[in-house]
């Protein structure tokens, strides 16, 4: 089995490649990037006018399996990922049961091997049941395939526990990913604390809820020497603190979600739960700071925080609706529309944010088109006009604020381990 992707603009930041060439994938591995490649019986894909990149990595998704299969399954989530141009996804541990043991990690890995169309890499919990007190079996989860640890939406509030987790994580070589939210400061909040929340009578989540925990974690990362990653950074001060820590040479990284670099609280229709997520859509100043972080390099990855919730859960009073939006199928288009087309970043930088950026954190051994690398590739257009219809989504859920948005550019085809798993 081989594939030749002809005449695309091949952008591979890992090898410093940006030129029109052919990409040859043989037996599930990258065989080469060069003009006029061919292989007997190869499937030919004409990528004239398209960009050919290493397979995109989304290091922050929720696949809801085991436990919440009405919202998403490993299979449905993986199909949404493929349609979004992602070839590898890392799934957060807030399933039922929580992925806090090698047993659950193995279940996800095995189930994904049989049912997922993209590579699925579990992220293990930091504490048992993400309860915040007792460390989970970090070493055993790593051995079973976990690529990082995080308690995601239930961040470890106890600084001593976080310190111990970082020490363990360092010794196992896994990064610690934190959803930074001081749960006391954010308690009861439904949206960003600002003029909008006060006007609408909704309880606010202050930016300080994120900043306080980022500050604590950066100090602990320095104390322990752990590799530390800020999930979905959303505030001006958090971006600044991460940038300062990186300048001091700490092994610290941060990701931004498409919704946080495209939307602010002012863009929210009143009480529309498809705009309700954590961290919340912040002020326009915070959104601009996130974009500046992406431009400056303080933010090194784009991750979707794809968080499916069925319609029945989002069709409630705003304060009762769960937090989160789906995002796998719109991420690339939003990055093009809001970062590349306005000239904020280059196309090459965008590819980094989807490949080498996350790869540096979760170390999947992917994210490059170097010969011998796994045969994953993302083929996308920078000018294809299309409209997102959430009702056609591969996800089991429909909670997107980008329904009916029209885009210029987006994924066209996705190759995982040398096979097409999705074509537009």
């Amino acid at each position: 089995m081989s594939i030749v992707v002809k005449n695309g603009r091949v952008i591979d930041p890992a090898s410093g490649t940006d030129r029109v060439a052919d990409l040859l994938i043989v037996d599930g591995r990258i065989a080469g990037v060069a003009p006029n490649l061919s292989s007997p019986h190869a499937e030919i894909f004409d990528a004239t006018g398209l960009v050919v990149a290493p397979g995109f990595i989304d290091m922050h998704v929720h696949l809801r399996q085991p436990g919440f299969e009405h919202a998403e399954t490993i299979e449905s989530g993986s199909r949404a990922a493929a349609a979004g141009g992602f070839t590898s996804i890392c799934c957060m541990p807030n399933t039922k049961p929580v992925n806090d043991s090698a047993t659950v990690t193995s279940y996800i890995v095995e189930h994904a091997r049989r049912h997922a169309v993209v590579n699925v890499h579990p992220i293990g919990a930091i504490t048992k049941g993400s309860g915040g007190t007792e460390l989970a079996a970090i070493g055993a989860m790593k051995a079973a395939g976990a690529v990082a640890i995080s308690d995601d939406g239930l961040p470890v509030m106890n600084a001593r526990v976080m310190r111990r987790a970082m020490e363990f994580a360092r010794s196992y070589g896994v990064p610690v990913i934190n959803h930074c939210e001081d749960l006391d400061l954010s308690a009861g909040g439904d949206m960003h604390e600002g003029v909008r929340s006060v006007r609408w009578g909704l309880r606010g989540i202050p930016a300080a809820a994120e900043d306080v925990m980022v500050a604590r974690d950066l100090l602990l990362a320095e104390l322990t020497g752990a590799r530390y990653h800020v999930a979905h950074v959303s505030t001006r001060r958090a971006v600044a603190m991460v940038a300062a820590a990186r300048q001091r040479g700490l092994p610290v990284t941060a990701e931004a979600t498409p919704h946080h670099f495209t939307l602010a609280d002012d863009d929210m229709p009143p009480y529309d739960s498809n705009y309700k997520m954590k961290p919340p859509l912040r002020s326009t100043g915070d959104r601009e700071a996130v974009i500046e972080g992406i431009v400056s390099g303080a933010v090194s990855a784009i991750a979707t925080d794809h968080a499916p919730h069925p319609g029945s859960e989002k069709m409630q009073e705003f304060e009762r609706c769960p937090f989160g939006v789906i995002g796998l199928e719109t991420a690339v288009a939003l990055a093009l529309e809001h970062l590349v087309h306005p000239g904020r970043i280059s196309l090459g930088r965008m590819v980094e944010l989807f490949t080498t950026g996350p790869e540096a954190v979760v170390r999947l051994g992917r994210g490059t088109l170097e010969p011998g690398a796994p045969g994953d590739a993302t083929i996308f257009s920078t000018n294809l006009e299309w409209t997102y219809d959430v009702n056609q989504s591969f996800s089991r859920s429909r909670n997107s604020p980008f329904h009916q948005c029209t885009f210029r550019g987006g994924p066209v085809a996705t190759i995982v381990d040398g096979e097409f798993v999705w074509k537009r």
Partner: protein
Amino acid sequence: MPAGLLGIEELDRAAIEALLARAKDFQPLQSQSLKKLDTLRGKMIVNLFYEASTRTRTSFEIAAKRLGADAISITAAGSSVSKGESLVDTLNTLAAMRPDAIVMRHSASGAPHFLARHLPTPIINAGDGTHEHPTQALLDARTILDRLGRLDGLRVAIIGDIAHSRVARSNVHLLSRFGAEIVLCGPASLLPAELAHLAPGVRLTGDIRDAIRDADVIMMLRVQLERQHEASFPASEYFTFYGLRLEHLDLAKPDAIVMHPGPINRGRELSSEVADFQRSAILNQVENGVAVRMAVLEKVIG
């Protein structure tokens, strides 16, 4: 979206004036022996109250009946709500019985706005969480007009738990349409700085004397312990610093009026003497509740 009444923020000055003028027409009716009109004969109004309420619910019911409409009231306790039915399912069920309007009170801000997007029936907001209480602001405005003869350019002090007050928000939106100078006053933890951006003409202060000085209208808010999700202020000190006492009234304009949306807590947010004070307009407010709600029901359904 069918035209109901979700908030004052959506109304322009002309719409507010029209409702207040119509409410004035209905005022004499309240003291006649034959009080019933047939303007809305054959119409059905459902009052759906997810939160305890005496005066608002009763006054909506009376307003509906005086217009000749049939009104039924449903409270959350003892209905399908207490059996775990979702809000949208309950409302769809009610809407299927084809009422002409649903009057709704709910503890969640935005609940009527959410339903208005999904239901064919006009919804009248009778108070949503800490967001808006439009008919309260209208009856307050009607009361001010009756007592002071004008709404334009007044100086109004609103004192108390502003953060959690839907009455304050609706009044700010309404009075601002008439160029009022509005001073919001309360403990800092109940007075977020963002309130200054609610509408033009709003100023914040933590000093009750500063708020009352030269005021035409003093609106006291109930201390809403049920909306306090935490200890935002030391309760023992509240009356000392934010309670309205007779001596404060010397700072206000000589003909200033004192208002309160009720129910009042004597000794907590205002002294008993103030509650019974001759310039207190509290009972006028209650009286105007029916007239204003008749005007609203007539506009929405008529």
